């Protein structure tokens, strides 16, 4: 982690129509920093990282990344700027979103060939190197449908890395996976972190966030509840909202008991 700020969000606010998604989000990400964004569903985490590579526009605030300055509102971002951002920021989705009509290796080769005009042979060689890295070279010629979720997600990581991005965004990369497949995907992400990739990661894997992230951001109720060094935030959160969230995810049995107790109490009241 260095002092160069590569992503700087200032007071970003996003609405879908009249529904507030998140408000006043300000966040700096330094080169090689790993930022994990955690929090309850519906807090706006996913939408926030989608705003960073401008898959969604945002309404207010500013976003500086990779030398571009984007402002909220209706103003259109020039095509060239958008293209530059998309080329230099990689994204991995919760639902993998591999291209089903292309084989594994074609999925990885497509963008370098189409966007960077890389010769086919070179693109193939690089794709193979990436597949080796995630342990899937033998799957190169099959269609995504035939892969397990964990394999699909590892291919999706390769596909994003093939563009040699400077920043990687992960939108709940393991939420759709069976528990026993989560490890293989987290392993690939951890490896990237060690190699110094700048990353923003939305996740529900608290233990992983603690281990791999430098900074943890807790988003709740459409805003940042707390952020700071990973261990500090996850072990001794200061704000009440953050404590509430963490106690629920870290002690699920306790939360279940509370839930049952609350229900029984309210039903008892009805009768």
């Amino acid at each position, binding site marked *: 982690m260095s002092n160069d700020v590569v992503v700087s969000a200032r007071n970003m606010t996003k609405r879908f129509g009249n529904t507030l998604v998140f408000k006043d989000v300000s966040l700096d990400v330094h080169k090689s920093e790993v930022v994990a964004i955690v929090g309850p569903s519906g807090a706006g985490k996913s939408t926030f990282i989608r705003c960073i590579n401008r898959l969604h526009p945002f309404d207010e605030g500013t976003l500086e990344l990779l030398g571009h300055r984007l402002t909220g509102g209706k103003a259109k971002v020039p095509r060239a700027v958008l293209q530059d951002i998309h080329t230099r920021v990689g994204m991995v989705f919760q639902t993998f979103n591999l291209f089903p009509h292309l084989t594994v290796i074609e999925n990885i080769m497509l963008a370098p060939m189409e*966007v960077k005009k890389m010769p086919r042979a070179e693109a193939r060689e690089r794709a193979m190197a990436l597949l080796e890295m995630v342990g899937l070279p033998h799957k190169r010629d099959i269609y995504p449908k035939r892969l397990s979720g964990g394999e699909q997600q590892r291919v999706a990581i390769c596909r994003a890395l093939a563009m040699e991005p400077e920043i990687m965004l992960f939108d709940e990369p393991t939420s759709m996976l069976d528990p026993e497949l989560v490890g293989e995907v987290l392993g690939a992400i951890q490896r990237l972190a060690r190699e110094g990739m700048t990353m923003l990661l939305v996740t529900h894997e608290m233990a992983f966030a603690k281990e791999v992230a430098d900074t943890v951001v807790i988003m709740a109720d459409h805003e940042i509840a707390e952020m700071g060094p990973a261990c500090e935030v996850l072990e001794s959160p200061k704000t009440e909202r953050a404590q509430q969230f963490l106690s629920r995810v870290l002690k699920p049995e306790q939360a279940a008991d509370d839930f049952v107790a609350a229900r029984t109490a309210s039903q008892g009241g009805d009768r």
Partner: protein
Amino acid sequence: MHVALHYLGVYGVGALKDIALTIVSTILSIILGVLAAAGRLYGPKALQIAIAWYVEIIRGLPAILQLFIIYFGFDQIGIHFSPLMAALIWLVAYGVGYAVEIFRAGLMDVAQGQREASAALGLSPSTTMRKIVFPQALVAMLPPLTSFVVLQLKNTTLLYLVGFADVMYEARLGVDATNQAGPLYVMAAVVYLIISLVIGRIGMRMERRAAAYR
């Protein structure tokens, strides 16, 4: 030799005309239909509305009425089309109305996540359409497209009404001349059935190839 068999030759010529007309009108309908579907989905509001109305009108008016308006109606205001020209204009005008809906449904069938993944990789909208969306949409579009081609083939039978000499036209003439309605119409039916079976086969084969990844 049965009198109906004398008509084999003219049936053959008529069938070739039907096939040619079906192929040409299908190709033109598909090209214009793709453009119109893109306009309907991604074009400016006014264009979207215009195309939506066009579809409603084509779908809502009886086919034969459309043909008569083009052939007889335009004649009244001094624009005279030959039977072939009227046939082609009508089949394409009619075909585009249906093709738009087939393509629109196919394009909408492709998951939004595909477009997002493509955009996130830096692929341009046109490359996304060409390399990602269209190949997947095709799988959903091929079955209705096959039915559409068969429909166009069957529509050609209406053209005898404006004097276009296809199989149906020859059958009518033959029946008038020989009073052999049964054999002559059954022969015509066999001709249309064979052509539509071939179209169905081709469609199935294309479908299998396009859906190989599923």
